[in-house]
């Protein structure tokens, strides 16, 4: 199971790097989304994959019974998903606004804030 997850993460990261090498900012953004999800899987895998029960403690007991799943990585992933979603929403709006304003999504053509190119 770990191997399968590792391979999946590898494929997702490779795809995202491919996308992020594109000049189109929107494609870059899609790559970033994929990458952040790959990282979520990394955290999930780092917390060990077990076939344990949900980490719930029965009424009246002080400790869970039998093998349970590690709840912490899940909490971390959940937080990371929420934060990642917020950042993604912002970046998407930024790219859209930039497109409306500059009329391009090609990062090579975004030179407004750079100094004048004197070596043309």
């Amino acid at each position, binding site marked *: 199971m770990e191997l399968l997850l590792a391979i999946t993460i590898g494929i997702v990261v490779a795809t995202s790097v491919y996308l992020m090498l594109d000049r189109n*900012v929107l494609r*870059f*953004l899609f790559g*970033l989304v994929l*990458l*952040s999800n790959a*990282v979520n899987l*990394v*955290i999930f*895998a*780092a*917390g*060990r994959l077990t076939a344990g029960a949900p980490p719930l403690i029965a009424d009246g007991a002080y400790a869970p019974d039998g093998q349970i799943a590690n709840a*912490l*990585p899940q909490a*971390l992933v959940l*937080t*990371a998903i929420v*934060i990642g979603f*917020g*950042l993604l929403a*912002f*970046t998407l709006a*930024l*790219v859209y*606004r*930039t497109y409306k*304003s*500059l009329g391009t999504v090609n*990062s090579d053509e*975004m*030179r*407004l*804030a*750079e*100094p004048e190119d004197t070596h043309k």
Partner: protein
Amino acid sequence: MSWLLVYPIIIPMMTAVASYLFRRSPAGRWISLAGTGALLLASGLLMANVLQQGVIAAQMSNWDAPFGITLVADYLSAVMVVITAITGFATVVYSLAEIPRRLEQLGFHALLQVLLVGVCGAFLTGDLFNLYVWFEVMLIASFGLLVLGGSREQLDGGIKYVTLNLISTIMFLTGIGLLYGITGTLNMADLHLAVREVENTGLLTTIAVMFMVAFGVKAAMFPLFFWLPASYHTPPVAVSAIFAGLLTKVGVYALIRAFTLIFDQDIGFTHTILLWLSVITMVTGVLGAAAMNDFRRILSFHIISQIGYMILGLALYTPLGLMGAVFYLVHHIIVKANLFFVAGVAKRIAGSTELSRIGGLYAHAPLLAFLFLIPAFSLAGFPPLSGFWAKFIVVKAALDLDMWVVAGLGLAVGLLTIFSMTKIWGAAFWPDHPDGIKPRLSDIPVGHRLALMLPIATLAAMTCVIGIFPEPFVQFAETAAGQLLNPSAYLETVLGVQP
């Protein structure tokens, strides 16, 4: 639980909410001013307490470390919070005159306060994942501030800033996940102990390098700094100033914290990388500055160059080196924010920040010229200003280890810093204005003039005071460095046991 540690986070957070609610009325800005005033007070109290007790910690919701989130302040954290409050206060005062109503109504003050929340949180947290969360808070606020107003240059710079910083964040998160995978803890004090039990040290070093890259992007270390000169000159000056003062320094702080407390296993490998990167950072930064022709762009490249000195102090990993890094951090925040403030006033009275399109500032605004010289000389390391001692300590630390090349380059970079400061002086202050304008401070209305010049004068006075009476500050930095190199007090306070 000590509330002192919570105030620097809660106060700006409440201020953010209140100033957002009142963003359409003039009350918003006064709330923001009062909030940063309260933050200044809270940080002073925190500092007084830390000076008394050494290290203080608070367990959130009474979940004992390492299970809950710990807030902890040692000397380094405390001084960073104080300096954050000072810079925040100066920026809010400055923005009273600089930020137009339109941006205030869009929520400028709320975003600024959220930025302060993130920065203070990052300095105070004792938990690695919590650090990630504060980084994100800081980041999203900085995104907002950077593109607020939405001019074409801002959007252009914003895209580069946002994308590269997001990659760094993802790298940081990966590092956290993997580190948790091999140690099973995220509390920094607990990690200090846990990494000693890890058998697979190769994997640990790999993770260390991931953290180095993630924090390196934030700190604008070579070769990861490209987002900084692409964006820092585009937003309003008040925003540039607080970014220049604080944001990269959070990266440096995180590097110092991680590479003294957690990754001190393979110093021969990680700190050698840091050493050479820091030297190249110094040199490329200053050379980049020499090639620029815009007031704020020159200053932006100087941030990168100065970051090199701080990381050099960390990379040397001697008490003197770390002491230099701490001293440099504090000195640099004051000086750099101040230089950006000066650039803003110059823009306002002379009409631009392009060096070829301004002039006459020395003849018509001698006070501004004088107040520019103080931080400019301090940045370059002239005695008796704070920059002299900062450079002196770092270079001395390098010489003590017989690193002649490193020390020599450090001094040469100082010389080149003076070169680009003279370039600004020679173009913006000395000659007449190309359009025949007489840039006078008295053209600014009195209230605005006060709001613009007071922060500049205060910060300039601070760099003078640190320079002329360095003794207590140097002693403070020495204790801070001692705590970093021997974290037993830190561990004891956080974990409650003798390590």
